[in-house]
């Protein structure tokens, strides 16, 4: 059986999702994304000219296997996010949306209260909602209850490349979740991506680490391999690392 990932009506062979920001030019962006074999690519609504069909970025992403995932980056409230999602649905002909609401312009940390509100409304409007959130297990369950199709907890502040600083909480989220868990933000190296997959994440989203590398095409490929290796290791079940010592005073001798 093929180890695919199902989100809403789509089946993904690749568990690496990528982004379109921060590349030095659009053809390099396209070549890196192709090298990564990613099938889901986020596009900031604020970056595309939705009235222009020959928008440079969109033209470069016209590949059959690439699905566009508009994100709401730039909005600060639930109300703005819902509006942005509706615009994106019109413009990009997709009801998928990566919901990101970060009122804080410095670290771009997501607002959990506005995100939950917007998610609930967007689900009712028929969107496939992929919310970007802090690695907060309770928030993930609350989002699941309003009907989001996956959760996207962060590993570290976006663009920081610090790796999985939230790993203890990611483990709890993965253990409890009934929807796919996609680790988003903070993944700075293929080893971080592999680690996320070994923990049991269903996919990872990587943008900055590929886009700002010296060689984005090679880095796109490196991430692809890391995600595959991590997933394979997860399925194969990691060998134990820790031995538990046996204590001296017996607790079960009364049985003999």
């Amino acid at each position, binding site marked *: 059986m093929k180890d695919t990932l199902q989100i809403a009506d789509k089946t993904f062979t690749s568990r690496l999702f990528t982004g379109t920001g921060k590349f030095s030019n659009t053809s390099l962006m396209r070549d890196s994304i192709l090298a990564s074999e990613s099938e889901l690519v986020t596009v900031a609504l604020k970056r595309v000219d939705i009235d222009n069909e020959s928008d440079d970025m969109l033209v470069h992403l016209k590949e059959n296997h690439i699905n566009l995932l508009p994100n709401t980056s730039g909005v600060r409230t639930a109300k703005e996010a819902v509006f942005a999602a509706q615009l994106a649905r019109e413009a990009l002909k997709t009801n998928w949306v990566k919901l990101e609401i970060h009122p804080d312009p410095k670290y771009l940390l997501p607002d959990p209260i506005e995100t939950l509100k917007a998610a609930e409304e967007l689900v009712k409007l028929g969107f496939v909602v992929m919310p970007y959130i802090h690695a907060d297990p309770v928030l993930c*369950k609350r989002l699941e209850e309003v009907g989001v199709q996956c959760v996207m907890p962060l590993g570290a502040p976006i663009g920081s490349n610090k790796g999985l600083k939230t790993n203890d909480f990611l483990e709890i989220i993965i253990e*409890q979740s*009934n929807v796919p868990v996609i680790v988003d933000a903070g993944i700075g190296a293929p080893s971080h991506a592999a680690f996320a997959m070994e923990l049991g994440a269903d996919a990872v989203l990587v943008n900055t680490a590929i886009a700002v590398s010296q060689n984005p095409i090679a880095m796109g490929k490196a991430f692809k391999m890391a995600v595959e290796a991590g997933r394979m290791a997860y399925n194969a079940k990691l060998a*134990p*690392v*820790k*031995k*538990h010592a*046996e*204590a001296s005073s*017996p*607790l*079960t001798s*009364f*049985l003999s």
Partner: protein
Amino acid sequence: MQNTFRNTFDKYDWDTLEHDIYGFSEADVKSVLAKDKITLDDFKVLISPAATPFLEQMAQRSHELTKKRFGNTIQMYIPMYLSNECQNICTYCGFSMTNKIPRKTLSDAEILKEVAHIKSLGYDHILLVTGEANRTVGVSYLKHAIALIRKHFSNISIEVQPLDQEEYETLITEGLYAVLVYQETYHEATYKIHHPKGKKSNFNYRLDTPDRLGKAGIHKIGLGALFGLEDWRVDSFYTALHLKYLQKTYWKTKYSISFPRLRPHQGEVQPKVEMTDKDLVQLICAYRLLDEDVELSMSTRESETFRNHIIKLGITSISAESKTNPGGYAVEPQSLEQFEISDERSTDAIKDMIQSQGYEVVWKDWDRSYVNSNLE
């Protein structure tokens, strides 16, 4: 179709599980014991015969995990039987409809008399128990009983017939904290043999009861299988599967597991499959290794020696001096019991036994204002 445990349950097959559980090797057990996180698949290995030689190691780890999560404490509770009227036939139960015993349902005055006695022993958490007689001991009786006693207890649980979601919601509003509902056995055919008549003969309705409780927003659900009806290892795997499903679905609810072993009683059926003391210790430890947070409960069905030693092995709550007949504490101490208890020591004696092992005895670990904040 609504998603309930039945969908998960249907993905497993009893015989395949049994075959798996009895097929593990020593190497399988070693590799599981070396892990930090125990999965349901690992649990299968830990309850297998192959794990028996590793009991001491499992016990040590269970002891440490329980201490880490619950500290050096043991919660005390006591059951109060409200009625032995029952329209079910359960082959193993003293209250079974066809048993010719005097039937009794406590009146308000009798309930309060029992409560006064129970309070004098020190209890603050109570478990109300009945048979299944929906006309006389239905939701309205239970609702009334909870309202009657709620000012005397911080924490009220019930072990009664399965109810509908709205009925549970009514009782929760009245002050109900937890519901214990044991599947008895997850072997559908065996279940039918032991529950041939009455509402309880509906396997599916019972199986999906914890789902209805979860939807009603109950604080705690108690699960278990009655050991003796079927192979305890397979039944325990299903119980653990049920637990994990519920935790993931009704994540605001807490869970507890009980380990009733079939005891001699006034019915015809005696245990089909024996579960030894050693087996029971293995199971308790396996549960703890699977789940650090689940409450594990021990009743007076077990012997003195066993209960003395089990305190340190993963158990978090224990009953004492239980009477399994309605009115058994103060109203009619001589009436017929549902089953014979084994550890007959007094509450004080149990308290001393627990304290002598370095544990604090906890009487109150809840406040009634949390469940019925809008009531007096």
